[in-house]
């Protein structure tokens, strides 16, 4: 039976670990070995909204495995809404390829494509719902950089209210028995309260603070996100908080030796450029891990072992 990757909610802990193991194998294999794995296979990358980074990462992953890529990338989120229905597009493209990678502003499009198509479907982001390949690459990065996931202290900084990336990663970390979270967010962008009520009472602690310095001192991972101006109804409110969430190299003097700064990219100004040269900067290797993880995902869902 074909296997889709639609939502982190569908995965068991063992399945998540299996993706991490496969990604490690991909990384160990030489470029020459890898490029022999998927000759003649075609991936259709259907990007109904622009997301250059995710698209390039998937394309790079498929090329690294010796396969090729077809597809399209919409210039803006609305240009494809006219004309052919989503399901018709899926049924047309499925006869041209072996695996579908879909990015769409509509929520539930990954699930719908998976139900409609006989090909394996990878959800590369459906509106504000799910982006499972991002979560898997984040987990892989943490495990690779820190040697483990369980028991780490992880801080999230920025827009914790709307960030799909943050929500999905917190849920996944809870599965891995990460119990100690520090949350640094302005009042209006705090993590929704239902997260703090999940799981056995008392198992998870969420320490909320508005002070980035505190999170730097105590955490193993500092996961930064953008604070978008559009999220603030009042522009003055935005001006007031935006600088309190900017990380600089100087602030990192208090960090533990092994601490890592991660970010889903692109950054705006929440990480100063002087952080890039420090040993703490993990966000560019994180992007590289994205290509590794996506190779693992493509292989697994095409049923090719490494």
């Amino acid at each position: 039976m074909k296997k889709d990757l639609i939502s982190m909610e569908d995965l068991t802990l063992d399945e998540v670990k299996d993706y991490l193991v496969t990604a490690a194998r991909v990384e160990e294999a030489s470029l020459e070995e890898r490029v022999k794995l998927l000759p003649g296979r075609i991936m259709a990358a259907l990007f109904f909204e622009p997301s250059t980074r995710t698209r390039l990462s998937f394309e790079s992953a498929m090329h690294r495995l010796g396969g090729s890529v077809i597809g399209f990338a919409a210039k803006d989120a609305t240009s494809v809404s006219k004309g052919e229905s989503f399901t018709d597009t899926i049924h047309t493209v499925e006869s041209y390829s072996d695996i579908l990678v879909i990015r769409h502003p509509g929520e539930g499009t990954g699930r719908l494509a998976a139900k409609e198509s006989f090909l394996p479907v990878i959800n590369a982001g459906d509106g504000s719902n799910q982006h499972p390949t991002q979560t898997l690459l984040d987990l892989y990065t943490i495990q690779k950089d820190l040697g483990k996931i369980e028991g780490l202290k992880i801080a999230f900084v920025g827009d914790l209210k709307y960030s799909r990336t943050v929500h999905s990663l917190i849920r996944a970390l809870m599965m891995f028995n990460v119990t100690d979270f520090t949350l640094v967010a302005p009042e209006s962008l705090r993590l929704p309260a239902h997260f703090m009520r999940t799981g056995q009472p008392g198992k998870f602690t969420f320490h909320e603070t508005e002070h980035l310095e505190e999170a730097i001192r105590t955490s193993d991972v500092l996961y930064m996100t953008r604070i978008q101006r559009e999220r603030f109804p009042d522009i003055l409110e935005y001006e007031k908080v935006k600088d309190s969430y900017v990380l600089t190299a100087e602030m990192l003097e208090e960090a533990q030796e092994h601490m890592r700064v991660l970010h889903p990219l692109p950054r705006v100004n929440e990480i100063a450029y002087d952080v890039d040269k420090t040993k703490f900067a993990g966000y560019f290797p994180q992007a590289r891990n994205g290509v590794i993880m996506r190779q693992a995902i493509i292989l697994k869902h095409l049923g090719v072992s490494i």
Partner: protein
Amino acid sequence: MKNEKMLLIPKIDLGIVVDHIPAGMGIKILEIISQYEEIKEVPVSLGLNYESRRLGKKDLIKLQMEFLSPEIIQHISIVAPGVTVKAIKDYKVHSKVVVKAPQEIRNLLECKNPNCITNVEKHVETHFVSLGKDCKQVRCEYCERVFDLNELHTLVD
């Protein structure tokens, strides 16, 4: 006693009885089933406030038809779980099911998330999954949003 009760509403040799409706819900359920095309021509009688050992008071609905579709039973199940649907043949109860709160609801409810693909591609059947046994909260299988059942509208309305 039993015969007296049966006299209040015509006895039928062939039909469907929706029984053990909590008193006060009968009219609501009649409204729901009347929306379906297959009921339009069917003789229906409604009984209100009958005595019931289980419920104290109950309502019931009789329909002179052989078969109630799964869509209608599903619709009844989300408003009044616990009702009994009996099929009558030759004046006897031929079969009986107790309608339970559904674990999955297909093609009946409309997702409230405007950005959900089921609201863009209207030909897609909606699909909700109950989060508890009582079906008070449901999750859209597509956009994964969670809703209270009573805040969602049905597609047949």
